């Protein structure tokens, strides 16, 4: 129950978190790295010119790999920083349910990475001006990219809740996201095929971010893929809330 005229707590926490990104050079560094590398990949490595075809396919193919490193860089501080500063003792003794803090922090991180994505709009404008790309595919690509960022941040936030060491939070999050990303790859699946049934193999393949990302990238927004990302994010957030609550003072 909130007194009238009050902001609900998750929004208060979201606001504080989102602003904190801009209190340090971290935000600027992140945005520059993101834009710079996405530009490089879209134009040179992806052969935006050479293929003689104006679209953003090469850029989007590269986005999951970019987020693989940049999402953990954002998420590593979410909870580890609270523990290091001791502010977790303030946060968890405020009359705010823990899920408000978990959701607020997650949404702030997600909004920030979506902001980075939005700043690539000049690419979109450029290809639209150069040619006649499939706008539906581009929109689907942006949605898919945002969802990948979301699931990586949720996983990274969970990892950050386990430790007070940000470097460990960063590295473990990369490894965890990498596994989730790669679990659809034949190489990985063959590794499991030796000692698992085909049902289990399909299950592993279906938890791969890449499988669902590529499926969305085909330009068809399928419910199955949305459910995948939504349940992945919600699952990681629930796990985060449980860990924060259990290990508040650890």
């Amino acid at each position, binding site marked *: 129950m909130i007194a009238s005229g*009050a902001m609900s707590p998750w929004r208060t926490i979201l606001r504080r978190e989102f602003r904190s990104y801009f209190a340090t050079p971290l935000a600027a560094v992140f945005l520059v790295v993101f834009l710079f590398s996405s530009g490089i990949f879209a134009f040179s490595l992806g052969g935006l010119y050479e293929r003689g075809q104006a679209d953003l396919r090469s850029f989007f193919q590269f986005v999951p790999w970019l987020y693989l490193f940049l999402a953990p860089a954002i998420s590593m501080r979410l909870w580890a920083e609270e523990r290091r500063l001791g*502010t977790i003792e303030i946060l968890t003794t405020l*009359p705010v349910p823990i899920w408000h803090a978990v959701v607020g922090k997650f949404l702030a991180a997600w909004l920030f990475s979506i902001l980075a994505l939005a700043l690539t709009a000049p690419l979109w404008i450029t290809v639209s001006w150069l040619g006649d790309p499939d706008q539906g595919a581009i929109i689907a690509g942006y949605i898919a990219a945002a969802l990948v960022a979301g699931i990586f941040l949720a996983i990274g936030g969970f990892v950050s809740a386990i430790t007070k060491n940000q470097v460990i939070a960063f590295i473990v999050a990369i490894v965890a996201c990498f596994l989730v990303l790669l679990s659809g790859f034949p190489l990985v699946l063959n590794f499991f095929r030796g000692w698992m049934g085909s049902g289990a193999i399909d299950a592993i393949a279906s938890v791969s971010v890449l499988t669902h990302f590529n499926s969305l990238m085909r330009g068809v927004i399928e419910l199955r893929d949305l459910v995948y990302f939504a349940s992945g994010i919600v699952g990681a957030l629930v796990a985060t809330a449980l860990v924060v609550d259990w290990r508040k003072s650890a």
Partner: protein
Amino acid sequence: MGELISASNLQKSFGSLRAVHGVNLRVNAGEVVGFLGPNGAGKTTTMRILTGFLDPNDGVVLLNGISIAEDPIGARRTFGYLPEGAPAYPDMTVREYLHFIARARGMPRRDIATAVEGVATRVHLRGVLDQVIETLSKGFKRRVGIAQAIIHDPPILIMDEPTDGLDPNQKHEVRELIRTMGSTKAIVLSTHILEEVEAVCTRAIVIANGRVVFDGTPSEFEAKAPSSVTRNRMDHVFRVMTGSGVEAST
């Protein structure tokens, strides 16, 4: 009536270390209780159990009749808390931070600016309201911690070493503040300054090795010293009660 804090048989172990061992505590409105005890006695641990930051292995905490274990959010509404070391978000200005705390506590938006000004006046923070917390001196950081604990005028106040790091003028001011608030609230504070207990507390509780070894008025405490002791009488009693600085085995 008037019993705001009631804690029964609190137990807390860290591994094989019994940090809190059968602590009982009842505090009424109008009482200021001073926790005394050597380093590592269990003062902070006890206060963390009272605020729900730590879950006890055994025991019950009721704040204004509300169980911290069963209705944590309801119980958290009843108090303000200054954790050990006065943690705060370093990248925020004092004003932003106090606004954040007030909002997170569900204060109606129109009341917040007034509440921030009011509390800043009371703990002498007006001059630094727009300074980033990171750049404040230790004493000012402590005052920010006190400010966030009292901004919502809670019936219960729990403060871990509120005057640590304050200059003599500020110590005096903060003691006056606590004494004033103590006439209507239930206040628990910890301190290493014995005179402070005499100056502001209606009751002194001495904790050693996780157990309450004294519970009474400051004058009863002082009266425990033999009449042959004429100077630093409280120090004398403290040393005798808590093992004269010899490391007691756990």
